[in-house]
């Protein structure tokens, strides 16, 4: 165990991260790295009912989100059986918290999960990668889901299926 691997999960990338756990395990095993799965969430608002009476405070919401995330990620990391894995949940502005986490953990490899999403989310991901790439000591690795032939732009390039032409009328 000589390398440290930080896997960054930002809001909106949860599904892509869970789907790419096999790939992450393969990479961590190849790099003989210890893994920290860091899930970043913005600070939640207190939960209120329809009369604006507080139902759950910010702390209660944070502990609920942390518990749910830890449980889901813990279940997904069972395939890391021979590796050291820890799961952390950080609250705050994801961009700032990712930088802080990278500074504190000092990883050699930073893994980012790329999901096919909207333009704004892609721009956010691009800015995050630029920020992480400036750190000379860490290599940025992007885990992207494999596109299927029927997905997105690939399907747009394929010719549309046409119904078969009708048979010519028979002459008697």
């Amino acid at each position: 165990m000589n390398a440290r691997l930080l896997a960054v999960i930002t809001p909106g990338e949860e599904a892509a991260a869970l789907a790419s756990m096999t790939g992450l395990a393969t990479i961590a095993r190849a790099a003989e790295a210890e893994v920290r799965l860091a899930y970043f969430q913005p600070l939640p608002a207190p939960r209120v009912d329809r009369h604006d009476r507080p139902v759950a405070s910010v702390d209660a919401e944070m502990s609920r989100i942390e518990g749910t995330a830890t449980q889901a990620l813990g279940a997904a990391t069972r395939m890391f059986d021979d590796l050291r894995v820890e799961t952390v949940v950080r609250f705050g502005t994801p961009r700032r918290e990712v930088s802080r986490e990278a500074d504190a953990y000092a990883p050699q490899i930073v893994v980012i999960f790329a999901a096919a999403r909207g333009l704004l989310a892609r721009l956010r991901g691009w800015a995050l990668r630029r920020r992480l790439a400036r750190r000379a000591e860490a290599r940025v690795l992007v885990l992207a889901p494999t596109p299927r032939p029927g997905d997105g732009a690939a399907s747009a390039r394929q010719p549309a299926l046409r119904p078969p032409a009708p048979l010519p009328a028979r002459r008697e």
Partner: protein
Amino acid sequence: MFSDLVGLIISVSPVLLLLVWRERADRQQHAADIVRADVDAGARRALEGESLLAIRVEAPTAWRPGHVRLTTPRGYEPLIGRAFQTVMERVPNGYEVVIHCGGNS
């Protein structure tokens, strides 16, 4: 005289800018081809010959770093693990490693 010179510069500068931009893009593509050859050679050595690991390198541009894309067919992801160390050693600064695996499988 001066206005003729300014007119000449204004009319020629787009062509010159385009040529400079193409020259720069061609150089970066050439560098990306060298990176691809190097990474491919390392991966072949690590995997002891031809494999189903596909390597594609995209040159860096002004707004994004270069990409070294590793792709395998579904079920062959361990190939990436076997070649991972070699690939990481050979990818230069300014390039990101993008691994396509597992998403929709």
